[in-house]
């Protein structure tokens, strides 16, 4: 049928931020790509590595200091945001809201996009810097250099998050 004859699409996402709010966009986009039959690759670099680091990916936090974009009823003034526990409380609230929408927590979401066929990579240089090895990453994640990632990204739509 005509509508099936388009050339295959490919999406490559570079994920560079590891806060709770910045973990979801790359995962949601990669998952949406796979649901639509689009090839998806996720490259995690710098703080983004926390999203695929086993010990960290279920403890991601949102910043309550210097973050003017929080939802009005999440809103916490910077001077209060510096108090101990404020970031954890805001993260708890955001996790609760995310769960209400039936989106999984970050560790489960990473597994979901991988089960859906997304290729997941950790940036070699960032991992060396943070003293991480392949064993620290979620199972199935590969370690890749920037040049190798660019080879994979040949012909793809590339997003930097």
């Amino acid at each position, binding site marked *: 049928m005509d*509508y*099936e004859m388009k050339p295959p699409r490919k999406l490559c996402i570079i994920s560079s931020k590891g806060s709770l709010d910045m973990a979801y966009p790359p995962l949601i986009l990669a*998952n949406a790509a796979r*649901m*639509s*039959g689009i090839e998806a690759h996720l490259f995690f670099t710098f703080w983004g590595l926390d999203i695929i680091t086993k010990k960290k990916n279920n403890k991601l936090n949102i910043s309550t200091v210097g973050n003017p974009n929080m939802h009005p009823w999440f809103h916490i003034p910077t001077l209060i945001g510096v108090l101990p526990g404020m970031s954890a409380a805001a993260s708890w609230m955001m996790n609760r809201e995310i769960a209400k929408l*039936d989106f999984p927590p970050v560790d489960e979401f990473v597994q*979901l996009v991988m*089960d859906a066929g997304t290729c997941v990579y950790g940036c070699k240089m960032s991992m060396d810097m943070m003293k991480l090895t392949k064993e620290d990453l979620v199972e199935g994640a590969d370690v890749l250099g920037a040049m190798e990632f660019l080879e994979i990204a040949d012909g793809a739509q590339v997003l930097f998050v």
Partner: protein
Amino acid sequence: MTTATASVLDNVAFDKEGFMVDAHAWTPDIGEAIAQNLGVHLTDRHWIVINFARKEFDATGQSPTLRKITKSTPVDTKEIYALFPGGPAKVAAKIAGLGKPTGCI
């Protein structure tokens, strides 16, 4: 066989992406014929997904999200991708005669 399935779809309207225009006009025979056109051979496992999607549509008026399907049926994420190659959200919705899914998950 070919002529028989072709006739099943003769009076069915599709949009330009291949989704059925009227979800209420769907029958299992039509689903079988759409699947054949998409190169999918339906098994019992496919029907678990299709029947659940139809049930959800009858209850809510919308196509269920993939997450809803994998959480509510024995078919998990890996399997649903294997069953409906080329993007399970769209392919399963087409075969079940439902509109394009709008959920993000």
